[in-house]
Every structure is written in C-alpha cells, then in structure tokens.
C-alpha cells in the first residue's frame, strides 16, 4: 500500500475515499475538500471524521449548548469556564475544585467491565489535565428493567469495572445513582464523574504556544484499540462497529473496545502532578475519544502557532498499525504535554522515575498549520482550528412530538388510590421494595467509598462529601440527579427538576451549592421529537442555572441512545458541586436520636405524575411532573445550610422520587430509629406519603433548637410543618398503619441482591 501523502493527494484528486464508512456526510466531505483545496489524505480524513463526529464536535447540540454561556449568571466562583477539559471552581482558602461528568454509554453496553472502567479512567484524566489531584469519583447509572436478563449481563460488569478501576487508583466512589427503566434496555447510561482539588496557582490550561516548544506523548503505548470508536460508537447502530477500520485499508476487524490499565493510570497521575509541581509544562491534554487526532489539533488550535508531529516516533504496541490508525487509536492512559526545550530533560527524567514511557513526538512551529509526518513524508497539513473547533454545526429541525399532549393529558390523578389504610400500607412496602426505590448497597458496597480517609459522606447520603483540608475541615459535596420520567413528561421542567434535586441534595447535607456539570443523554438528534426534548431540556437547565445563580462549568452530551425508532427517556443528569467550610458541620440523613422533632419543609400538593408510586403500583407514566419553583428551592437551601451551620438540625433528607415515605424509610433505616407521624390537617395521608412535590425536605430538630428553628423558617417565610417525632422501632403513621423497621428493611435491602446477585 502506498503512503497517502499530501503530495499524493494533490496529484490524485479523483481517488475514491471511504468518507461515508467513516461517518462523514457528503457535504461534510466536500467541506473538508474546500478547506484543504484538495482531497484529504487518508490520515486527514481519519482526523476530520473522528473530530467531526457527534461525540467530538457537538455538531447537533452546539447551538443549544451556547445558552450555558449566554445565560451564565454572574459568579465569582468560576475560575475556568466551559471549553477547557473541565471547569474550575473557587471553594475558598486558596483551593480550587474541578469536576466534570461524562458518558461512556455505548462502550459499556458492548463490553460492560472495560467500558465502565475506561469511562472512569477517561474522566480522571480530564480532571488531571487541569492540574488537579483527583480525589473522588461518582457514577450515575441507568439500566433496563431490573429483571431483564440483559441487565444481569450489563449491570454486574459495569459495577465491577467502575469498582475495579477506581479501587486500583485509590479513589473513593462517593455516590451517584442507579435507575432501572425498560427505556434503557439496550442503551444503558453509564455516566462517570470525577472531582479534583488544587491550589489556585496550579490551574493548567490545554494549549500549545511558544515556537520551538516540544510536544511530548507520555503514558501507555499506542495500540489498535477503540479505533473509530468515537465516530462509529456515537452513531445509532453497533453493527457497523467493525467496518470502520476496513475503511482505512485494513482487512482485520478492530474492536471498538478499549482495555484499561488502572495501575498505568495511577503512575500517570503521580507523574503528571509532579511535572506540574516543578512547572515543566506549558500546556497539557489528555487523550480520550479521537486520541492523537484530538490532542494534537486541540492543543495546536488553542495555542498561537502551528505544530509539527513526527508520527512514526509514537511508541506502538502493534508495529503493523497504519498512520491513520495511530491517529484514531483510543488507547487508554496517555497524555500529551507541551514543554519548553530546556525543560524536556527534566520532564523525561520524572517520567522515567515513575516508569512512564515518554517520547518527544513533535514541536510547536511558528506556522498556522498542523503538519504530521510519517518517516519524513507529509501526511497531514491542515489548519488545526478546522479540525478541532470549526467543525460542522447543525440547526437540526425540532418539533414538539404529536404524542406529547396525549401523554400529558393522561394524568396520574385518574389512577385508583389505595382505598383503605391496609392497602396504603401494602403499597408503601411495595414501593420501598421496588428496584428503583430499594437500597443500592449491594452495588455501592462493591466500590471503595473510604479510601484516602477523607470521605465524610457517601451513598446512601444525599450527597457525597470529601474533606479537602485536614486543618480547617474545608470540604466539597457533590450530588448527581436526573429523572428521565419527569423529563419525558416535560423536558424543560424535567431538566429543572434534576437541577433542583441535586441542588437540594447538596444543601441538605449542609454544603453551599456553587456550580454544575451536566451529562445530557438523549436519543437520535435526527429525530425532531428528540431534538425538541434536547432543546427544551437545555433551555430549562440554562434558565434554571440563571435563577439559582450557579454557572455550568462544562459537561458532555451523549446522543443516539436509541434502538431503532425508540429513544430513551430524555435524561439530563445534573451534578451539583457545593462547598462546606467545616465538614464536621455536615448533616447526615440518619434519624439517630429519639425524641427529635420531625419537620416537613415546603409545600405538599397532590403531584403524582411521573412518580415512583405511579410506576410501581400502576406501571403508568403520564400527566405533568411536579411544579418547579426555583426561588423556593433557593430559600429551602438557605434554611438547610443555616440550620446545619448553626447546629439546629441533626438530620436532613431531601424529598424526591418516592416522596415523604421514601425519605422517612431511608432516614429511619439508616439511623435504626422509628418515627411517629401525624398527618397534618387538610392533607390526604396518601398524598402526604407519596406526592413528589419539589422544594421539600424533612429535618430532625433537637427539642432544644425547636424555637430557634421555627423562628428562622417563620422569619424567612418557608412553610415548616411539625409532622412527628423520632421514636420507637417502627414507622407509625397515626390513624393509618405501623410498619416495624425490620419488616421495612426486608424488601428495602433484599430486592437488588435478589435480582442481581
């Protein structure tokens, strides 16, 4: 096979090229030709095709994501915004925190263990590239029906992969979610979040400037894994996965799966932090989706000049790889740094100390082109911005689906409610023991939650919390939430409910919410109905962030989560980051002291659309989700944070899916104490227990603090109803039923192991 050099490409303008197989559309291919003024070489085609894929270019979502910047609230907290590897937030005392959530959905469906493991690895490198030490991970997960055979294939693999990779790195997994719904059958959502901590001075941005600076590739060797993963995996079918590599002239099928090596990643972390510490790098970029294509073009386009890379110097695991494959390879545990010439020796020395392979593969030039050579012959000569940032942008048509009205008209208020106290009791046990509401300990116990010794709160608490400074007790809290059922009923409100719930969760644990990252999981953008859901959800999130005064620091979009014509529920997942001055002041969810008073904060209305009750008891999805009142959420959060700081509450739990009874059950079982509940006048017991009205929390107030707490709520205008007391060893709802904790614990704890163990 002759090498397809730029010279050769210029001489053979009519050569057939496999642009369609690589996922490019006709007009996109024409655009590449127009940019270059000739046909692209094979290597250039490989780069454009991966970088212009949905996954890398955000071509369908970009026009909507702009709102996150345009509607951004004034915030002093944001040190680095959208566009870098991850956003950076000021948490005080000279510390900055970076965090981000990303999807690894399709790879985790194909190969659950490695897909989920490399998802953790990828997000950890994103955080590392900002100069931060990764301190914790979280994983919001969604699977098909809990009793479906394929869930039993996918879930244990995913959980083991997350646990295996994270545990090897020594990173605590402090929370996340596990949700089951038939809509995720065949399209499980495996989102991964990482939090990192650094000092303000240590923030590093990805750019390559300074002519003559060296480009160093360090970490694992490059192999044939995951080739074309980004372009093909981000498309709607898996069947074509093997074909992508054949487009580059290789007969062998390259699997679009990568295998990770967490011990290599651990070395990469320590090595990278050390070169940062000695101030040896000008710019840095992790290699994830689109591998070297992405790293070189992004570094070059963020810098001032051009870049020249000698591709044949890249250390390979498999010497038969073609230049196209090297550019597209998604081999894990690799990073790319730009280093001043006089610092290269020291950089390499540190890499050697950590047993990390490092190679100078090129340098920053004073031109404006990214040039890549293969044994002295030029195979790529492109303006880097056209690869990395100026990809196609689509204004995809979107339209409110015709079925939306019928769905919303089919309200949950028509569903038969329990007629007797006995029936209400039965339904409580049924809901608490349903897969979505039951304890996820069987899953989270497979993760190491406490390694490093800084974990303050972890699942099943409202948020995961880690201590940042041992002296002062400064800590950060992160909660991730999303509710695809709500978002299906109303994507705008559903996205805001996810925002509100994660905000509430952070506040309930005593931390002040500062900023969000999001992972937007949707179906095919080529379906106008899905695109409408996406447009509505992003609009809802941007508007919501503006009201709450919290910026979006970055995130990730995952489209094409659908099988045939059937898309998943629109599932925007929001990760909220908060700060707490002293983790000793945190608020746990457990009711631990008998005699403490239970206050229900917020207003309860009969809102059951999309509720856990409607799903478990009636297998129903219809109507409208709970109303959103972000001003109320703000007030509630302020009360929860003040109460935590001033020691007015000993426990707090946010109310969300499953309503009050779910929160009561979790707090009672966690603390091993029961609760006596009195139904307030004018409220239906069923509504009190199962309604999912937003903007609510339940708190346990020591008797000595009752007056002060009541005064605070009264003065600020937050409805607070005393509904009971922590007492005994049963949940006793006066005039209705009593369920001993032992009886409640059984379905709550046995359901998940029963289905999956």
């Amino acid at each position: 096979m002759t090498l397809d050099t730029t010279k050769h490409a210029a001489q053979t303008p009519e050569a057939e090229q496999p642009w369609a197989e690589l996922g490019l559309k006709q007009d996109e291919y024409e655009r590449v030709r127009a940019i270059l003024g000739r046909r692209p070489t094979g290597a250039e085609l490989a780069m454009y095709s991966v970088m212009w894929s949905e996954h890398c270019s955000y071509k369908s979502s970009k026009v909507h994501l702009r709102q996150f910047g345009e509607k951004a609230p004034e915030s002093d907290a944001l040190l680095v915004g959208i566009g870098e590897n991850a956003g950076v937030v000021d948490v005080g005392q000279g510390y900055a925190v970076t965090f981000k959530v990303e999807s690894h959905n399709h790879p985790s469906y194909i190969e659950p263990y490695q897909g989920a493991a490399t998802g953790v690895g990828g997000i950890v490198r994103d955080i590392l590239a900002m100069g931060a030490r990764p301190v914790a991970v979280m994983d919001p997960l969604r699977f098909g029906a809990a009793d479906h055979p394929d869930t039993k294939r996918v879930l244990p693999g995913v959980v083991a992969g997350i646990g295996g990779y994270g545990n090897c790195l020594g990173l605590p997994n402090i929370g996340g979610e596990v949700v089951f719904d038939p809509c995720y059958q065949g399209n499980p959502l495996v989102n991964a979040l990482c939090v990192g901590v650094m000092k303000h001075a240590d923030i590093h941005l990805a750019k390559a400037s300074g002519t003559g600076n060296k480009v160093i590739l360090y970490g694992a060797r490059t192999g044939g894994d995951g080739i074309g993963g980004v372009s093909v995996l981000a498309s709607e079918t898996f069947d074509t996965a093997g074909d992508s590599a054949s487009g580059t002239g290789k007969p062998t099928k390259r699997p679009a799966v990568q295998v990770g090596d967490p011990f290599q990643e651990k070395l990469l972390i320590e090595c990278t932090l050390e070169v940062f510490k000695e101030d040896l790098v000008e710019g840095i970029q992790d290699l994830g989706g689109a591998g070297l294509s992405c790293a070189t073009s992004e570094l070059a386009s963020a810098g001032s000049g051009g870049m020249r890379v000698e591709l044949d110097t890249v250390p390979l695991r498999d010497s038969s790889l073609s230049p196209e494959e090297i550019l597209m390879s998604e081999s894990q545990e690799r990073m790319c740094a730009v280093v001043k010439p006089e610092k290269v020796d020291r950089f390499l020395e540190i890499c050697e100390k950590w047993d990390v392979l490092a190679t100078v593969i090129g340098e920053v030039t004073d031109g404006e082109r990214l040039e890549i050579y293969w044994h002295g012959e030029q195979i790529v000569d492109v303006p880097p911005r056209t690869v990395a940032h100026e990809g196609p942008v689509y204004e995809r048509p979107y339209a409110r689906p015709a079925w939306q009205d019928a769905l919303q008209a089919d309200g949950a208020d028509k569903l038969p409610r329990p007629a007797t106290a006995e029936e209400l009791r039965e339904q409580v046990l049924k809901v608490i023991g349903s897969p979505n509401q039951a304890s996820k300990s069987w899953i989270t116990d497979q993760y190491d939650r406490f390694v490093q010794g800084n974990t303050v709160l972890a699942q099943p608490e409202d948020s995961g919390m880690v201590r940042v400074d041992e002296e002062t007790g400064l800590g950060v809290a992160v909660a991730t939430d999303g509710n695809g059922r709500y978002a299906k009923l109303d994507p705008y409100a559903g996205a805001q409910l996810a925002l509100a719930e994660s905000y509430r969760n952070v506040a309930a644990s005593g931390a002040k919410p500062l900023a969000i990252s999001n992972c937007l999981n949707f179906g095919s953008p080529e379906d106008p109905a899905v695109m409408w859901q996406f447009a509505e959800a992003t609009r809802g999130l941007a508007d919501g962030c503006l009201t709450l005064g919290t910026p979006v620091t970055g995130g990730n979009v995952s489209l094409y989560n659908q099988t045939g014509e059937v898309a998943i529920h629109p599932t925007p997942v929001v990760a909220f980051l908060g700060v707490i001055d002293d983790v000793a002041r945190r608020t746990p969810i457990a009711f631990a002291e008998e005699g403490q008073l239970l206050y229900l904060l917020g207003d309860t209305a009969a809102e059951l659309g999309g509720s856990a009750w409607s799903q478990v008891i009636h297998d129903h999805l219809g109507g409208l989700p709970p109303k959103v009142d972000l001003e109320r959420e703000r007030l509630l959060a302020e009360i929860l944070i003040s109460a935590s700081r001033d020691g007015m509450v000993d426990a707090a739990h946010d109310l969300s899916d499953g309503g009050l009874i779910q929160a009561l059950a979790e707090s009672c079982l966690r603390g091993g104490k029961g609760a006596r509940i009195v139904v307030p006048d004018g409220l239906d017991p069923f509504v009190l227990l199962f309604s999912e009205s937003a903007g609510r929390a339940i708190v346990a107030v020591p008797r000595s603090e009752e007056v002060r707490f009541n005064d605070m709520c009264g003065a600020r205008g937050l409805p607070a109803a005393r509904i009971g007391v922590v007492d005994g060893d049963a949940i006793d709802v006066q005039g209705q039923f009593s369920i001993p904790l032992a009886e409640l614990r059984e379905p709550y704890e046995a359901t998940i192991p029963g289905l999956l163990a």
Partner: protein
Amino acid sequence: MARVVVDVMLKPEILDPQGQAVQRALPRLGFEGIADVRQGKRFELEVEGPVDDAALARIHQIAETFLANTVIEDFSVKVEVGEGADATAGQGATAVKAES
C-alpha cells in the same frame, strides 16, 4: 475420558496489562531477549462420552458464551488424546476463531 483444551487469549490488538507486567519484569530478573509477552487462560475440560462433532459443538458454545469474552478475546478448542498427548490436526482437532 477425553480431554478438550480451550485456550483463551486477548485479541492481538487489545491491551494486555498482565502480559506487559510480566514482560517488564523479565529484564529486571536478568532474562533478556523477550520482545513481547501475552498472557492467556487455558481450560481443560474432561468430557464424558465420545468427543464427536456434537460434543465439540457444545464445547464451542461453552467457550463462546462463558469461557471467553468474545468482544475482547479469541479462543481455540483442541482435543487431547490419551495422557497429555496432543491430537494432531486432522484427528478431529479443531481450532476455532471467535467472531467478534
């Protein structure tokens, strides 16, 4: 009783961290001249009854669905005749490449 051996190896392009760890250890222990190491798994199945085509088909199915993860691994099946003597090709031995 006949023995059927199933060898499972990671596909050539898949990263093998274990093999790499072994390879890195070799020079440290003074063993030179090994360019690469790949580590796999070997299953020895004692088969009841004759190892006919039906039995081999069953073993192929076992390997494909359980012993190997065909997304990232290849496997081969071969029959051992007698005490540890390998069957030569043509005596019913089959080598099967997994399809991804």
